């Protein structure tokens, strides 16, 4: 474990009117691990992910990613700092082809000027070739290369989820946030997804996985953080967390505490 965590969040707080969705969360994610964030519905998992990715800024606290403070940065700046994500409710670009969806993110670190585009010069063609290569690799990684030229909206649901992962990978992230990637998938599809996540881990990407389904994440996670009512109630290895009475209570209710 490298000494400096890739994500270091301190006192992250988010309020929606009177509701405190995140109440001073601290979170350290070491480089190269799979970190799961679990918790019952409404516990603040997605809100935390939105704060980390800049989709919906936290009101207070500090979030450092790779040493950069990102609390109030726009999402595209955070993406360019090496953080990519997927969404709980699918957000693909329906009017683009499958590969074009991925190309949007692949262009993340490749600057092109309007003049290059309009004149279609050598630099523009080289950039397009690079983008195409990165995008094909990302599609290969999730097993969607055979659908590259289809319209994204035509993909079945589970493949749209994989497309989101491919799009996130094409931005060459150091950190990948996956928001309930298995939601709506059947057992076979979920298992294939776990395989993909395991492969990603070996390539060195740090993965933060938000899941509602606890069983699913226990096998592949190195560390688990448990949220309840916007607070962190437990953190540790999967087996530690599973034995934690607070976690059992949060998931099953007070009556089952001694069950």
């Amino acid at each position, binding site marked *: 474990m490298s000494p400096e965590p890739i994500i270091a969040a301190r006192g992250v707080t988010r309020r929606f009117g009177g509701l405190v969705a995140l109440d001073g969360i601290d979170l350290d994610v070491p480089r190269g691990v799979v970190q799961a964030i679990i918790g019952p519905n409404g516990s603040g998992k997605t809100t935390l992910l939105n704060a980390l990715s800049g989709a919906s800024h936290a009101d207070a606290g500090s979030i450092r990613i790779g040493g950069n403070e990102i609390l109030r940065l726009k999402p*595209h700046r955070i*993406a360019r700092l090496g953080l990519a994500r997927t*969404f709980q409710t699918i957000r693909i*670009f329906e*009017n*683009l082809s499958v590969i074009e969806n991925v190309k949007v993110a692949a262009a993340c670190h*490749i600057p092109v000027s309007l003049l290059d585009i309009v004149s279609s010069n050598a630099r523009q063609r080289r950039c397009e070739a690079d983008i195409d290569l990165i995008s094909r690799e990302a599609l290969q990684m999730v097993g969607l290369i055979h659908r590259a030229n289809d319209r994204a909206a035509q993909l079945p649901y589970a493949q749209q989820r994989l497309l989101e992962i491919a799009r996130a990978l094409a931005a060459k992230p150091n950190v990948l946030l996956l928001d309930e990637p298995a939601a709506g998938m059947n057992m076979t599809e979920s298992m294939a997804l776990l395989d993909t996540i395991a492969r990603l881990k070996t390539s060195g990407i740090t993965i933060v996985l938000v899941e509602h389904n606890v069983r699913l994440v226990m096998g592949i996670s190195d560390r688990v953080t448990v949220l309840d009512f916007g607070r962190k109630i437990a953190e540790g290895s999967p087996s530690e967390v599973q034995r934690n009475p607070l976690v059992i209570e949060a998931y099953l209710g007070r009556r089952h505490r001694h069950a």
Partner: protein
Amino acid sequence: MKKGWLIGAASAAATLVPVIIRDGYIIQLLNIAILNAIVVLGLNFATGWTGQINFGQAAFYGLGAYTTAIAGQAGLPWITTPLLSVVVVGAASLMLGLPTMRLRTYYLAMTTIGFGEIIRLIIVHWEPVTGGTSGLRAIPGVSLFGYGPQGQLQHYYLLAATLALAVLVAARIRYSVLGRAMIATKDSEIAAEQSGVDTARTKLVAFMIGAIYAGLAGCLYASSIRFISPDSFSGTQAILLMTMLIVGGMGSIAGCVVGAVALTLLPEALRFLGQWYLVFYGVGVIAVIVLAPGGLASLASLRPRRAGVS
């Protein structure tokens, strides 16, 4: 392959049509249709691809036309007028775009309607310069080092070549980082941002490129029709341009051209109906929107439309 055929057939038709028709009035009408097509192609950047409702396009068209007319009548050589039009329209669209691109849908629509009305009022009331409601006449024609198109037919070929260039540039943008970022911004602003797209900048760029298309079309309008008046650039015109985009097919380059040409020619084709023409026109527009929500362009392929192909 299919695309190559389409472009070839369209070019051949565009070359032959005026030779076959030989009617000065119809060629003049085609010239206006081509200019409208360029303006609608411009509108497509912001509205068709980036999803920003823009009713200011007619005002940018007018700004380009009046800049050209005023500069020409002041004695500036023609070659300066496209550049001046781009500068004026670029500056206006930047000033309008910077504060408004954060606005969404209806709010942006309202703001651009207001902008169009301001430009129209300036044109109508700044009489010594703009000629007020009676407009400007005898605007100097297109001329490069003493050479310029003579007659409507030559103007037709000049304008058709400009449209071809406008289509080429639009197609290059569509299949580039920028074009994909525009469509991504329309489909999901947050997913585009998280993929590293600066959506605020993308919206501004789309809006400005579109305005510049309109400004250049306005420049050519003034110097090929050689008479301009506020009516050609009113709010009604802005709505007509939006209708051309919707009927032709939002987001489709071919659709922009088809929509602009169809809706420019249709009122003339229906002229024999007298006052009833508006009824047929309206019914026709509604029929397209109801029966082919993707616009006329979506009728071209009976197969399910593939992404980006159109």
